[in-house]
C-alpha cells in the first residue's frame, strides 16, 4: 500500500524514530505517577509521614517536567515530518500528472485530480502526524498500564484484559464497516467540485439559456448526496467514543466489586484499588486516542488509495532515454536539429494507422486514420484539408507525439519517431491548436512559453510576424499587460495571434497550425501568410497547416485531402483540382468558378 509513498517518508526517518521515542519516554514517566500516588496514600498518609509525602511529590514534579520536554520534542518532529511529507508528495504527484498521457488524463478527469492533490493529501498529512504522536504512546500506555496493574495484582488485572479485548473487537468491526463509506464521501466531494467548475467555465451559456435554476438544482443534488454519505459514515463512526468509554467504565465497576472482594480477603490494599482505577482512567484516555486514530486512518486509507491510483498511472508516450540528440544548428535557426540526416524530409508518414480506441484487428471502422502516407521536405508547406472529423487534428497530434501510431512509420528527418524522445522532439515544434489556451500572466510570460530565454526583441519580432504586435502595442502596459485565465480578456482573434506568436518565439523547425487563423479576417490572414512565407525562406522552417479555408492552403507545396480518416488525395492545388473529386467539391463550395481561376 505504501510503496509509492515510501520514498517521501524516508527523509523523515529521524523524526519517525525521535518523535515516538520521546513520546514513549513521556508515557513511561507518566506510568509511574499512579504508582507513586498509591505510595503517597498507602505509605505517606496511612503512616502520617509528611517528609515521605513531600519527597515523593517533588519526584513526581521532576518527572512530569521531563515528560513535558519530551512531548514538545515529539510534537515538533511530528509537525516537521507530516508537513514535509505532504509537501513532497504534493510536488511529486503534480509532476507525475504533468507527465501523463492524454488518454490517462481524459480517463481520470481534471476535477478528481485536483481534489486528490489537495484534499486527499491533507488527510494523509494528518494521518502521518497522528502516527508519530500516538503510534507508540497510545498502545504503549495501554500495555504499560496493564502490565503495571498486573504487577499490583494479577487476578484483578484479568478484568482489564477482558475490557481491552472487547474494545479491540468493537473497533475492528466499526472500522471495517466504515472504510468503504469514507471512499464514497471523497468521491461525492469530487462531484461537488465538478459542478462548481462547470458553472465557472460555462457561465455564459448557462445564463444565455437562463438555466441558472437548473444548475442550482444539480448542485443541490450533488451536495445533498455528499451530506448523506457523510451522515451514513457518522452512524457508525459516532459509536466509537461512547462504546469505548462504556467498556472501560464497566471495567471500573467490575474492579470496584472484585476489588472490594480482594481487599476483604486481604489480597490488596485500598491504595492499590485507587491505583487500579487511575490506570483504567489512563487506559481509557489512550484507547479513545486510539479510536480517534483509527477513524483518521480509515479516512486516510481511502485517500491513500486515491493517491496511489494517480501514481500507478504510468506515462505512455515518453521515451526519455531512447535516441541521441545532436545539436548542429542549421543556418538561421537556434533550434536543435532532430537527427542527423540533412537531405531527408522533415516529416514523413508511411502506412500509418491510428485509432483512439483499442483496435487489435485493425478494423477500419474504428480507425481515426487509415493508411496515411506523405512526405514533407524541409522548408516546405503541407496543407491538410477535409471535413469535420476527417482526422486532420489527429495527424497533428501524431506529429506532436501526443499519441502513438499503431502501425506504420513516422519519421522526422529520416529517424523513426519511436526512437526519439518526445520531449526533445517537441522542442523543435511550434504548435498552435484549435481554441488555443493562454495562461494567467503577462503577455510576455505567455510568449516566453515558447522560449524562456527569448529576448524582448525576439518576442517583438515573433509578434510582428504573427500580426499580433499592433494590438499589443495598443495596450497601455504593452507586453506587461495582464492576461486573465485562458485569455478571457482578449478577443478570439487576438488569442489566436498571440498563440501563433508564442509558437514562433520558439524558432521551431516545424510549425503546426491547426485551424489557427479561423478567427482572423482575410486581410490579417493574408498578411500572416506573407510573414510566414518570408520566415520560411530565412529559417528553412517546415509548416503544416490544417484549415477549412481553401484560401489558406491553396498556396501550399502539397495538400493532403482527408475524408473519414482516409487519404483522398495528395498534391498541389492544380493537381488536386484535376484529379481529386473530394477536393474539387470543397473548393467549389467555397469559391465561384471564376474565382478559382
Amino acid at each position, binding site marked *: 500500500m505504501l510503496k509509492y509513498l515510501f520514498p517521501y517518508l524516508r527523509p523523515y526517518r529521524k523524526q519517525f524514530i525521535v518523535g515516538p521515542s520521546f513520546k514513549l519516554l513521556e508515557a513511561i514517566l507518566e506510568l509511574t505517577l499512579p504508582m507513586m500516588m498509591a505510595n503517597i496514600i498507602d505509605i505517606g498518609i496511612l503512616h502520617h509521614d509528611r517528609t515521605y509525602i513531600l519527597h515523593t511529590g517533588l519526584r513526581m514534579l521532576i518527572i512530569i517536567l521531563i515528560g513535558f520536554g519530551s512531548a514538545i520534542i515529539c510534537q515538533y518532529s511530528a509537525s516537521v515530518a507530516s508537513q514535509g511529507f505532504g509537501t513532497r508528495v504534493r510536488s511529486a504527484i503534480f509532476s507525475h500528472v504533468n507527465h501523463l498521457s492524454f488518454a490517462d488524463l481524459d480517463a481520470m478527469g481534471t476535477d478528481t485530480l485536483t481534489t486528490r492533490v489537495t484534499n486527499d493529501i491533507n488527510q494523509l498529512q494528518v494521518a502521518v502526524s497522528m502516527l508519530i504522536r500516538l503510534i507508540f504512546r497510545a498502545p504503549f500506555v495501554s500495555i504499560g498500564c496493564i502490565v503495571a496493574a498486573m504487577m499490583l495484582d494479577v487476578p484483578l488485572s484479568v478484568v482489564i484484559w477482558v475490557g481491552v479485548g472487547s474494545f479491540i473487537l468493537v473497533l475492528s468491526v466499526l472500522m471495517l464497516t466504515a472504510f468503504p463509506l469514507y471512499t464514497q464521501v471523497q468521491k461525492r466531494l469530487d462531484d461537488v467540485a465538478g459542478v462548481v467548475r462547470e458553472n465557472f467555465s460555462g457561465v455564459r451559456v448557462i445564463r444565455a439559456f437562463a438555466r441558472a435554476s437548473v444548475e442550482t438544482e444539480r448542485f443541490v443534488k450533488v451536495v445533498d448526496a455528499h451530506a448523506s454519505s457523510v451522515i451514513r459514515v457518522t452512524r457508525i463512526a459516532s459509536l466509537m467514543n461512547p462504546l469505548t468509554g462504556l467498556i472501560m467504565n464497566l471495567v471500573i465497576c467490575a474492579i470496584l466489586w472484585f476489588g472490594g472482594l480482594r481487599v476483604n480477603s486481604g489480597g490488596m490494599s485500598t491504595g492499590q484499588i485507587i491505583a487500579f482505577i487511575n490506570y483504567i482512567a489512563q487506559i481509557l484516555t489512550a484507547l479513545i486516542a486510539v479510536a480517534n486514530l483509527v477513524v483518521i486512518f480509515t479516512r486516510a486509507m481511502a485517500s491513500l488509495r486515491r493517491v496511489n491510483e494517480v501514481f500507478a498511472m504510468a506515462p505512455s508516450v515518453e521515451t526519455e532515454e531512447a535516441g541521441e540528440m545532436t545539436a548542429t544548428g542549421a543556418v538561421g535557426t537556434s533550434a536543435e536539429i532532430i537527427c542527423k540526416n540533412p537531405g531527408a524530409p522533415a516529416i514523413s508518414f508511411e502506412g500509418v494507422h491510428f485509432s483512439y480506441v483499442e483496435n487489435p484487428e485493425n478494423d477500419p471502422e474504428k480507425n481515426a486514420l487509415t493508411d496515411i502516407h506523405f512526405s514533407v521536405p524541409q522548408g516546405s508547406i503541407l496543407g491538410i484539408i477535409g471535413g469535420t472529423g476527417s482526422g486532420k487534428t489527429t495527424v497533428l497530434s501524431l506529429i506532436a507525439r501526443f499519441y502513438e501510431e499503431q502501425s506504420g512509420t513516422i519519421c522526422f528527418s529520416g529517424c523513426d519517431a519511436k526512437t526519439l524522445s518526445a520531449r526533445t522532439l517537441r522542442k523543435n515544434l511550434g504548435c498552435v491548436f484549435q481554441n488555443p489556451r493562454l495562461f494567467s500572466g503577462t503577455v510576455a510570460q505567455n510568449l516566453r512559453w515558447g522560449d524562456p530565454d527569448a529576448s524582448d526583441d525576439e518576442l517583438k519580432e515573433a509578434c510582428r510576424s504573427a500580426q499580433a504586435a499592433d494590438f499589443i502595442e495598443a495596450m497601455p502596459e504593452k507586453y506587461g499587460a495582464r492576461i486573465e485565465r485562458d485569455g478571457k480578456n482578449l478577443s478570439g482573434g487576438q488569442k489566436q495571434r498571440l498563440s501563433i506568436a508564442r509558437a514562433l518565439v520558439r524558432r521551431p523547425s516545424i510549425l503546426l497550425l491547426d485551424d489557427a487563423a479561423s*478567427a482572423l479576417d482575410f486581410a490579417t490572414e493574408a498578411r500572416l501568410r506573407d510573414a510566414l512565407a518570408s520566415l520560411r525562406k530565412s529559417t528553412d522552417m517546415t509548416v503544416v497547416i490544417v484549415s477549412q479555408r481553401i484560401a489558406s492552403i491553396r498556396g501550399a507545396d502539397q495538400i493532403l485531402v482527408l475524408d473519414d480518416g482516409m487519404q483522398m488525395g495528395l498534391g498541389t492545388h492544380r493537381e488536386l483540382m484535376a484529379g481529386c473529386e473530394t477536393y474539387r467539391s470543397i473548393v467549389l463550395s467555397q469559391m465561384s468558378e471564376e474565382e478559382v481561376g
Partner: protein
Amino acid sequence: MPRATSMLPGMRNLAPDARKLGQAPVKPSWRLLSRILGYAGRQRVKIFLILLFALLGCSLDIAAPLFMGKAIDAMIGKGQVRLGIVMQITGMLIGFYLCSAFFSWMMIYTSNIVAARTAALLRKDGFARIGKMPLRFFDRSSHGDVISRFVNDIDAISDGLLQGLVQLFSGAISIVGTMAIMLYLSWRMTLIVLPSAVLTFLLASWIARMTGKYFRKQQMYIGQINGVVEETFSGQREVKAFGHERADQTVFDGINSKLYTVGQKAQFVSSLPNPTTRLVNYIAYILIGVFGWLAGGLSIGQIAGFLMYWTQFSRPLNDLTNISSQVMAAFASAQRVFEIMDLPEEEPDPADASDLQLETVRGEIEFSQVSFSYEPGRPVIRDFSVHVQPGQRIAIVGPTGAGKTTVINLLMRFYEPQSGMIRLDGTDTRRITRKSLRRSFGMVLQDTWLFAGTIRENLVYGKPGATQEQIVAAAKAVHAHGFIKRLPEGYDTVISGDGGNFSQGQKQLLTIARAMIANPPMLILDEATSSVDTVTEIRIQEAFALLMKGRTSFVIAHRLSTIREADLILVVKDGQIIEQGNHPALLAAKGFYFELYNSQFAAQA
C-alpha cells in the same frame, strides 16, 4: 496594504478589489460566529437535543465518581469491607454508565448530522450567491481557488467549528459541574487547584491566537495551489506542446514550500496546548495528592474521589484547548468562504422590469450611442449606433479585437455599457428582466460548452420539454443525427466533462442544434461555423436560413458566403462602425470593406 506583486497565478490576476482577498487578518468575531450559527440554526430541534443530551450525559458522568468515592471509603481493609454498600453502588454505577454512553452517542451522532447539513447549506447558499454575480467575477477569479473554498474551507468549518462548539458546550458543563462537587468536597483543595485551571485557560487562548495567523496563511496557500493545479491540469495540451512542465513545477514548488513553512509552524504551535495543559494538570494532580491530607484534611476516599474529579475536570479542559486551534482554523476558513459570498452581486432587475413573452418579441433592436470598456481607460466601443429592423440578418465583420464580441456581451447584458442605450422593440433593455431578455436570444458561441450529461440532456438544455421528434429534427437539420446514431448509445451517450470525447466540429453541431431546439425569436451566432467544414456549413446555413426567416439575427462571421447573404453588414474597425450596407453596396463604395474583401485574393499572386 502592500500590492501582491508575486508571480503566482490565481492571486495576481484578480481585479484590484479582489486582490485584497485573503489578506485580512482573522478576527474570530462574534459576527462571524453568529453567521455560521445562523446556518446551523435551522435545525433548532436537533440543537436542543444535543444540548439536552450533553447536559444529561455530563451530569451522570459528574455524579459517578462521588459514589465511587463512597464505595472506596467502604473498603477500609482486610475483612473490613462493607460489601453490601459496594454492591449497591456498583449496580447504580453500571446503570449510570449505560445511560451516559447512550446520551454521549446521541449527542455525537446528532451534532455530526447538524455539522453535515450546515456544510451542505453553506455550499448551496454560496452557490446561489455566485449565480447572481456579474460575469466580471467569473472572468477574473481563479477557478481553483474558489472551488477550494467550496470544498476544503467549508469542510474545515463543519469539522472544526461545529464539532468544536458541541465539545465546548459539553466540556463547559463538565467543568462547571465538577468544580461544584470539588468545592463541596473541600473548598480549600479547590482553591489550591483552581489557579492551574485559570493558567491553562490563559495559555490556551494565547496559543490559539497565534495559530489563527498561521492557519489563515495556510488556507490561502492551499487555495493558490488549487488554482495552479486547476489551470495546469486543464491546459495540458499546451503544457506538453511547449514543454512547460518544468516551469509549472517551479511555480508549484514555490507555493508548496511556502505552504510547508506556514503549515509546519501552524501544526506545531497548534499542537502545543495538549502537552502544556497536561503539564499544568499533573501539577495540580500532585498538589492534590500531596496536600489533600496535609492541608485539606481529606479522607483517603475523599482524596480518591477528588483525584477522579480532577481527572474528569482536566480532560474536558484539555479537550477545550485542543478544540481552540481547530476552531481558529475553522474561523480562518469561514472568513474565506464569506469573503466570496459577500462580493457584490449583479444589480438586480428593477422592480417594474417587464418580463418578455417570447412569442410577442418582434426583434427590433436599436443601439443608441453606446460606449463601453472592460477596463477604465481602454475603450472598446465608442459611440456606437445602429437600428436593426425585425427579421433582418446582420453580419458584423472587421479586424479582430475591433469590438465584435463585445456587441454580443452588451446585447445579452453580460456586461453593461458605460453610456448610451440599447432598445429591444422600443424598450430599454435595462427595463427588461435579464432572464427573459437572454432567453429571447438563441446563442451559439465560439466556445462550445457542453456539460457532463447525455447528448439528449445537452440538446434540450434550452427547452427541457422538447419532444423526441423535435430533437431528432434539429439534429438532422444540422447533420449531427448521423454521427449521433453511430455512437453505441446514440442520444443517450454521455458527454464527458467539457466534451472531451467529441471533435470540435461535432461539438459545434451539437450547440447549434441546441439553439435550434430552444427556438428563440432572435439569434446570435458568434463565428459558429468556423470549425465546421464548408460542405457541412452550407447545409447548416440552409437550415439557419429557414430558422432565421422572420427572425432578427446577428452573425459575427468571416465566411464570405455568410456575409454575402446578410441584409445589413456592419463593418467595425477600432470600435467604430465605419461602414454599413449590404454586400453589393459596400463593394461599390470601394471603402474598407472593399479592401477587406479583395485581400483574400492578394496572397494568391
